């Protein structure tokens, strides 16, 4: 639906220079189109600004330290105890946002180092090296601020997802994910992205975005340097790669963050100016939350392809409540909606004040690439492959008879079931020994009723994590009707991995 060109980037820049460009935020654009129609809006509006401030894990910063005397070719380095990598020759370091501190893991990480540097704070650098004839030094310890660095560039290889899933949790325990803390039994849900304000949502075919597009990045001007990793345009999961000068950024729009039991990350503020080159772009930038959809996904299933529960609009998400399986569930945004608004407004004011000029991309983001899954050399084993029959008993059995089963079959776990074969609890040989010592005769006094379970189609890796996390040695295997179909033990798993 190519529509005729209304204006060029050069013409817009000329108007910006004269202070005559008409700039509105994506939210304002919706209202203008609603009240005056697309044709008028397209004619009058030159630029629409967007914004988002969300957790973007695939972020980091490249820094150059300058040379010490005698010089060092850094092999390993840490800033504030966070390991930083050495992708270059001698003194170039990359601070990855998700790399965690060795002394304060899960609380402080690369994202925090970047924020501290932006704030102008002093950070502690430690480095070691093997020493060469040209770079003899093997150890280094120093304190640095951003002013001591030659270059300090944010260099994020995947930012600004076009849209993202809404996460919830079907399990009967709290889980901590990169989508935040998810309460059991669909107790809450979280989502990311600013909906109608989101940058890529307002230019979904990447007409104006590509290599060289100047953008708002972390409170300063930055650039799109290409499509982001995992860019997946066919499913509207586009991403971008960006670069911006960390020395000029503001801590208001860059936050180091910790997701409990998941790790550290970086919140990054990004905004695009979208030039209204044609009527089509006027229409696209007037998209509103009612028309932006994503999926509610069950993060309780720890697989690559998690089950989708339903489709949901951003309008519904932003209302704070969504309906899942006929239950009202509270939902919260993980990205700051206030921050997104502020970014769109700030970018607008920069253009109004002739401080920000638009660029045409040298090459647009690809619209046809696919995002492939990982190639693995061997298939992942499932619980199915190591399951064996469980020794079962009923709740009303005596300790003595269960003890006999344990001895006779030389096993350690007996699964307690009801008449329908449904799980009621578990008893271990240790429980039995203890019961005998204490003179207890009834099984009901010693049954463990809160039992962690697995299913035949669960990856062994996931079952193994359950054993380790809860410090237990076996998991009953249940089917969809909660009937016990077998058991797996820590021993089965170690045998499998030894093969």
């Amino acid at each position: 639906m190519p529509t005729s060109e209304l204006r060029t980037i050069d013409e817009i820049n000329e108007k910006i220079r004269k202070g005559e460009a008409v700039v509105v935020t994506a939210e304002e654009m919706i209202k203008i189109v609603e009240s005056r129609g697309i044709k008028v809006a397209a004619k009058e509006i030159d630029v629409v600004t967007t914004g988002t401030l969300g957790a973007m894990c695939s972020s980091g910063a490249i820094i150059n330290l300058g040379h010490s005397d005698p010089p060092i070719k850094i092999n390993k380095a840490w800033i504030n105890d966070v390991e930083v990598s050495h992708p270059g020759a001698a003194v170039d370091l990359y601070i990855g946002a998700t790399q965690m501190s060795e002394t304060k893991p899960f609380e402080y990480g690369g994202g925090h180092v970047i924020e501290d540097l932006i704030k102008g704070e002093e950070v502690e650098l430690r480095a070691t090296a093997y020493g060469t004839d040209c770079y003899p030094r093997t150890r280094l310890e120093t304190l640095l601020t951003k002013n001591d660095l030659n270059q300090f560039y944010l260099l994020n290889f995947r930012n600004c997802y076009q849209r993202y899933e809404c996460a919830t949790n079907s399990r009967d325990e709290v889980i901590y994910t990169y989508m935040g803390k998810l309460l059991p039994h669909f107790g809450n849900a979280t989502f990311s992205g600013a909906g109608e304000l989101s940058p890529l949502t307002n230019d979904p075919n990447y007409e104006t975005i590509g290599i060289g597009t100047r953008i708002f990045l972390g409170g300063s001007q930055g650039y799109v340097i290409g499509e982001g990793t995992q860019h997946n345009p066919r499913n509207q999961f586009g991403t971008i790669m960006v670069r911006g000068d960390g020395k000029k950024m503001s801590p208001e729009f860059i936050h180091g963050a910790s997701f409990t039991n998941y790790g550290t990350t970086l919140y990054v503020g990004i905004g695009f100016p979208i030039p209204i080159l044609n009527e089509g772009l006027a229409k696209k930038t007037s998209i509103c939350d009612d028309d932006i959809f994503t999926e509610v996904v069950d993060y309780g299933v720890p697989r690559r392809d998690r089950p989708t529960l339903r489709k949901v609009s951003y309008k519904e998400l932003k209302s704070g409540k969504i309906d899942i399986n006929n239950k009202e569930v509270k939902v919260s945004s993980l990205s700051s909606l206030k921050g997104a608004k502020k970014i769109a407004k700030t970018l607008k004011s920069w253009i109004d004040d002739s401080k920000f000029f638009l660029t045409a991309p040298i090459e647009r983001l690809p619209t046809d690439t696919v995002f492939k899954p990982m190639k693995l050399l061997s298939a992942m084993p499932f619980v199915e492959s190591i399951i064996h029959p469980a020794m079962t008993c009923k709740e009303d059995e005596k300790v003595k008879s269960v003890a006999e089963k344990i001895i006779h079959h030389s096993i350690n776990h007996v699964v307690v079931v009801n008449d329908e074969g449904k799980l009621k609890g578990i008893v271990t040989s240790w429980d039995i020994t203890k019961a005998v010592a204490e003179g207890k005769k009834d099984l009901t006094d010693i049954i463990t009723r809160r039992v962690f379970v697995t299913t035949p189609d669960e990856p062994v890796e996931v079952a193994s994590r359950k054993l380790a996390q809860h410090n237990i040695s076996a998991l009953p295997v249940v089917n969809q009707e909660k009937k016990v179909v077998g058991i797996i033990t820590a021993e089965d798993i170690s045998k499998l991995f030894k093969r």
Partner: protein
Amino acid sequence: MVKVLLKFSDKVTDQPITSQVIKEKGVTINILSAHVDQQGGEMLIEIPEDEAEGVIEAFRSKGVKVELRRLIEVNKEKCFDCGGCISLCPVNVITYDAEYSVVFDEEKCLGSTCALCIDACPVRAIELIT
């Protein structure tokens, strides 16, 4: 109504202190939430204003520590209004205002007997006052 936090040491958790106080004073006590572990227990209750003094006295005389105070502290310097904590709160303490700033109605908070939002904040802006 006055909201007070009762702290039971492990020595008194096995006694029916709350029902004793209710019986003695003839008041209604609204139990908002409770939490018990090996170290003891905590209970958040609401009592009618004019009865508060007597009830607090009664709990104290039975060896329960009674505290009247704010239960959480939100560091507004750190908070950047991400909204991540909102969906964790069971009693709607946390909401957006008209500008999408995240605001806390601390009066309603259940404090350490709940604490669901505390470790959900990515910048650790919410703290329990202990």
